């Protein structure tokens, strides 16, 4: 082959115009954001997630109810329950019980009536006694008994001339049918029934203590006031459900986000190490990962609880976090290792290495960013499953300890009264469902937006 003379070459004309990129260059994130922006479903779920995080972070600070303040006069109230309350005198034991003025001539207790104002604090009944009766039993029911059973036996007044009874147990603002049944010495009974409307009531001192009114309030007994609204109702001890759900969101989202963040980070480091080194090291490391997968989570959670010396009544959130991090990383490690193995063989890695790039830079600059899509998608799918794990563990009583609520423990509490007050179960269940669904849809959308392979098929 003869030498090629220098003159055989001609300086090429550089056509800068042609080289110029006609559209602005898009970075990885700009591209991803563009996809997310146009995907309404992903966008909606992203908004939901951001909203939940904001609610958890700032909600309890802004909301005027404390999650642990009990109001035993308003237990298990649904959101639409009436808020009006009548101010009454403080309760004092009923000492000046009325004397018998008149005996019944109908053979059954007669003239049953409420003494004073019948309210949820107390209902005081008197009646005209019957001659020959040995005992009077007072019943109460929420449907007109007509000729059927009289309902809930409340208690008895002993003696022929007994003519009063005070009912204080579990009264709610409602219409009750009170019956007084006289028992005679031969065992026969007669009864009569009267409906009584029971009003919601509070003492002025109680209203001031609950901060429903100012301490210099001029309300008099008999006036009415409106109690603050519980938008999601109250639970079995009269605590505000919204405040508890927001407090519960802190726990659920903390565990749900921090645990995956930590175990995926661990998995990424471990997986990229194994994938990059390859060979025997890779085999050993991955067998160890298989071993970790086989460890039972619940058992370790209990063990950690013991090891950390978490005593009775102390929150189990820390051992839960540790157990999650130590046992959940292998999935992420496997995924990242697979990616790294693949990327290691790509041309641009060889090129970069030929240009003298050092290993750390190689991993950080070329390999990790290329697995970023997979990592993010794994993360968004790990979040809902972790939230679910936390809810489950709190449901079975392994997680938070009272008074701190968590969505799972609230579900467990609400489950017991599912038939009578369904809102105590439904609201935490809705919060769990919406959050888990939002994270899942977000993960789906992120995969569409970030996954390099999906992009190359377009």
């Amino acid at each position: 082959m003869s030498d090629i003379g220098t003159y055989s070459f001609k300086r090429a004309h550089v056509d800068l115009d042609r080289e110029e990129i006609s559209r602005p260059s898009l970075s990885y994130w700009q591209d991803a954001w563009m996809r997310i922006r146009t995907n309404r479903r992903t966008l909606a779920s992203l908004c939901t997630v951001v909203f939940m995080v904001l609610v958890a972070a700032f909600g309890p600070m802004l909301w005027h109810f404390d999650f642990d303040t009990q109001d035993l006069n308003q237990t298990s109230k649904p959101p639409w329950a009436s808020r009006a309350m009548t101010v009454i005198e403080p309760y004092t034991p009923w000492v000046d019980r009325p004397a018998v003025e008149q005996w019944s001539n109908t053979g059954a207790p007669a003239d049953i009536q409420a003494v004073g104002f019948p309210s949820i604090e107390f209902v005081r009944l008197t009646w005209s006694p019957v001659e020959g009766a040995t005992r009077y039993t007072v019943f109460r029911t929420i449907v007109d008994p007509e000729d059927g059973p009289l309902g809930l036996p409340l208690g008895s007044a002993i003696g022929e001339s007994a003519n009063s009874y005070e009912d204080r147990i579990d009264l709610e603002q409602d219409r009750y049918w009170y019956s007084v049944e006289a028992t005679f010495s031969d065992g026969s009974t007669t009864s009569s029934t009267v409906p009584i409307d029971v009003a919601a009531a509070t003492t002025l001192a109680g209203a001031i203590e609950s901060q429903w009114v100012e301490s210099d309030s001029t309300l008099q007994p008999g006036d009415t006031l409106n109690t603050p609204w519980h938008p999601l109702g109250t639970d079995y001890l009269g605590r505000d459900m919204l405040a508890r759900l927001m407090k519960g969101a802190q726990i659920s989202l903390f565990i749900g986000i921090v645990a995956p963040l930590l175990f995926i980070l661990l998995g990424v480091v471990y997986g990229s190490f194994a994938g990059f080194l390859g060979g025997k090291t890779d085999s050993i490391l991955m067998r160890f990962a298989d071993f970790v997968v086989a460890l039972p989570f619940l058992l370790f959670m209990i063990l950690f609880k013991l090891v950390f010396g978490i005593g009775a009544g102390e929150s189990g959130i820390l051992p839960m976090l540790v157990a999650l991090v130590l046992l959940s990383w292998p999935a992420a490690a496997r995924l990242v290792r697979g990616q790294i193995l693949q990327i290691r063989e790509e041309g641009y890695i060889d090129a970069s290495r030929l240009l003298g790039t050092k290993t750390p830079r190689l991993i950080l600059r070329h390999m990790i960013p290329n697995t970023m899509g997979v990592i993010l998608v794994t993360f968004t799918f790990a979040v809902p499953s972790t939230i679910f794990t936390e809810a489950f563990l709190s449901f079975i009583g392994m997680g938070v300890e009272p008074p701190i609520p968590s969505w799972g423990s609230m579900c467990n509490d609400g489950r017991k009264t599912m038939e009578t007050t369904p809102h105590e179960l439904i609201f935490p269940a809705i919060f769990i469902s919406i959050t888990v669904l939002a994270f899942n849809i977000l993960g789906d959308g992120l995969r569409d937006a970030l996954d390099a392979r999906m992009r190359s098929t377009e």
Partner: protein
Amino acid sequence: MAEASNESVANVIPGSGRQLIRYGVYAVVGFIVMLFLLGQVNQCTGMRSSSIGAVHAGSGTITLNLAQEPPQLDSTKATDQVSGMVLGHVMEGLLRYDADNNLISGVAESWSVTDTEASFTLKQDLLWSNGTPITAHDFVFAWRKAVDPSTASQYAFILFFIENAREITSGDMPVESLGVTAVDDYTLHVKLTEPTPFFLSLTAFPTYFPINQAFYESRDGRYGANAEDLIYNGPFTISQWVHNANVRLEKNQNYWNKEAVHLNVIDFAYILSDANAIINLFESGDIAQAGLNVELVDRALRNRWDIRQHVDGSVFFMEINYREGRLTRNYNLRKALQYVNDPSELVNKVIKLPGNLPGESIFPVWLKGVNGKFREEFPAKPMMTNHDKAREHYALALEELGLDKITLVMLSGDNPSANKQSEYYQSKYAKVLGLELKLDRQIFKQRLQKMTDGDFDLVLAGWGPDYADALTFGDLFTSWNENNRGRYNNPEVDRQIDIAKNSSDPNVRMAAFARVQDILNEDVAILMNYERGSLYVVHDQLKNVARRSVGPDPDYAFAYIVDEES
């Protein structure tokens, strides 16, 4: 390319949104259909072991549930309520309770009790279900067995009123030295350690039931483990006992008073403790009786069921730990807790179940006193809740203990009612005193273990009576009582109980108990919570079911079924 991808995304989304909705609808519809189908399958194959229904007048059969399987039915070892209930139907002691809770003659024909001894003449010609005669020797054998240290019966203490029983159980004397002798086949003679005015009621207690020695020994250690490992002398026999499935009782044809027994079969067809499941069985007409909890009351009212109340006699209280090193030894701290305590609020607004009474004293309202009721003759000091005084005492306690803040551990059961109560106290103490309460929730066995170990500051505990006398509650906080879990130790309480135990004069005894009632209140030995009551529903046709606070409960021995028409 960016544009293209934009387009494709834009195209895909509405389509996939519709798809998602479609799948969602499919899923919901499929779920409902599946629920319906499963319901049908359940109705065909459900765990129904009898198709006869709750009550069957023709055959004299009633169907019921047991809350749990009896661990075994050896009367010397039985401790739980279910075993006691079943044993009460199939066995009989010297005396028994009738449907109105009066003590009536059982195996014994006549009896006499003095301060130092008791003697019983037995009915002749009574037979065990296998045809063996029932003799005084059967009682001697059973009672010796119960106090024998090798039996390790948890209820041995209930025989401690008999001479030498305590020494035998602690291994210091041979079982033969027990102060009970069969003078002949039909005369039983008992020596008492101390005046025991309520001894007759003890003879109706399961631990006092007879056991036939020959049969016991023939079972080779399996006595009471199965239906065929028992012989019976009560109104019923166990005809079938399938472990963890059902227990079926049939009328005992050898029972001396079988004319008074109207039911032929009591079929405990379900072993079930879930209140909702039990009430569902009652609603569908499968069982004749069911308990109600507070969540089920509205349902029962709307169904217009005939609801009844039962006071089971138990008293619930907060026990305080007095062991060395516990903060709760501090009097001002206990006094502060006492001033916060509001049993009436607890019962009316937290427990919410009628029948429960606010606790005022360790001695419940139903106990007999000198002539009438103990609590009417010796009223307990009214407890006045006073938050200001509570805070004063709390401040004093902090000063004395040199602390800025007090944290206590409250041990409680792990069930909805106990959880509610403990959370109520937690918030209450925090709000009124600023005291932090940590909740230690444990299942029954574990809670009992922790109570025995003294691993608590406060514990939500309760005590059910073993016999109908104030002593069953009165001696709870003596220094020698194993069930004094907080190790409360007050020589004056010990002294008063000693006085009560060594007298048979009701005036002396009740005065001593009244003194104990006052001391426990003044010294804040315990904090009272409530006296337990319960609600239940019974089938319209089933009558004369006895409920009682002491002894086998409920008792169907003399129950009968009325025809639907009547």
